[in-house]
């Protein structure tokens, strides 16, 4: 067993330009290698291609809902009744736990008025990701104390504009990016 003897083997510890340059190149190289190894776990091109779904809503009459799968999640497309619309409009913002519109079509700061939760110019048409913001269960439609959605998992209650009114959920259910591409077709995503 021999340990190094500094008299025989001078340690080259001088920090000179060559070592710093080499070390720098190693760090850059490591980062350049690391990126593809990490990025490969991001959604691939096939998953990104399914990011949009076109829905034919011609069969949805007032008071009816249609549920579509979008990015693996249930999205409800509902033509609300006049009663549901009136109830939604009557709610004061100050009564809401979550005053944010949570609408991907609007700026982040938009407030949760019914107008900001429904389709501009077609206020009966209501599109929403039907996933409870508490722990991710799918709430049941047209149930609960607010005529909106009721989540059986832990008792969260949403109103006719999908806003949280009672129960443990912290936020209103989210509105995805969508638009009417014709009178009878909605493109989600």
């Amino acid at each position, binding site marked *: 067993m021999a340990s190094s003897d500094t008299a025989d*083997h*001078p340690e*080259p510890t001088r920090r000179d330009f*060559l*070592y710093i*340059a*080499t070390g720098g*190149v*190693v760090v850059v*190289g490591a980062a*350049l290698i690391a990126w593809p190894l990490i990025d490969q776990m991001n959604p691939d*091109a*096939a998953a990104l*291609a*399914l990011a949009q779904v*076109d829905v034919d809503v011609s069969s949805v009459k007032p008071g009816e809902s249609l549920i579509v799968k979008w990015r693996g999640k249930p999205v409800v497309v509902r033509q609300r009744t006049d009663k549901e619309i009136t109830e939604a409009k009557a709610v004061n913002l100050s009564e809401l736990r979550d005053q944010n519109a949570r609408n991907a079509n609007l700026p982040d700061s938009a407030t949760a008025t019914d107008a900001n939760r429904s389709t501009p110019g077609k206020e009966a048409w209501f599109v929403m990701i039907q996933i409870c913001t508490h722990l991710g269960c799918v709430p049941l439609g047209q149930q609960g104390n607010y005529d909106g959605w009721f989540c059986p998992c832990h008792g969260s209650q949403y109103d006719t504009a999908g806003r949280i009114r009672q129960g443990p959920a912290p936020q209103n259910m989210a509105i995805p990016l969508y638009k009417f591409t014709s009178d009878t077709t909605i493109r989600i995503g």
Partner: protein
Amino acid sequence: MKLAATIFTAAALCALPALAQDAAAPAASAPADQAAPAAAPAATQQAVPPPATEQTTTAAPAASAPQVSQPTEFPIKKPGLQKWSFAGPFGRFDTAQLQRGYQVYKEVCSNCHSMKYMAFRNLGQEGGPHFAADEVAALAASVQVTDGPNDAGDMFQRPGKPSDHFPSPFADTQAAAAANGGAPPPDLSVMAKARGVERGVLWAVVDFFTQYQEGGPDYIHALLTGFQDPPAGVTVPEGTYYNPYFLNAASTHMPPPFKDGLVAYTDGAPQTIDQYARDVSSFLMWTAEPHLVERKRIGFEVIIFLVVFAGLMYFTKKRVWEKVAH
């Protein structure tokens, strides 16, 4: 060392015949190759191949060994090597050529050949045909795809979307075979990588440095332009078409797919069999390797990086070791 040299020379002399066997095959077909492409357009212009007894005016059969018996080694002729825009370290696809190639695939080949790994959205990719988004949507919508089951439990047809894969012309392999004399037309998605050119050991060494990876497109181009009358003494089964470039036999079940003017190009490119073959071969290279351009670009950057890094490491190593006898 003398002993080793003697034994090595003896071994090399034994090996020479084997190597010569490889070298002879391309040499024998070389004069034939030069004659064949010129003859091929004349031969393939006919919609129906002439009866086997008719002589054509091509020099090709005469230039190769007089074939008085049925050939047993395939391909009978090796493909000629073509120039491709995507060859070499800085190769890239010609966008216009890929668009024409897609048009050829769609109008001619897709009637029999599926391309199941391609989706319409791929047609909009950079480094590829790079169609605009609305063109991609229109191309998708111009075909019908099967979807379903619907709420009644039935499958139905609907216009394609960019996320759909290219539909297959046949429901399954058996239907494809039944419609094509027992031979199902193969899927073309990776055909440009599923074929190659056998060049022998010596060329293999050269190819390592010249980066020859275009054996697939060379083969496909040769096959598509290679339909011709069989030479005297060679017969092919009824319903097949003689092609000396075909990998497995003297003839294919596929009829010559092209004739001059068959596909109407809108960009002024020549509407000849050779051009169609070139364009569709390039397109098939892209469908097989859609990331080719990106791969070569990153490769250039990586190799420059590694050369710089190796250089720095070399000097670092020298510096570390300079005071130590070794």
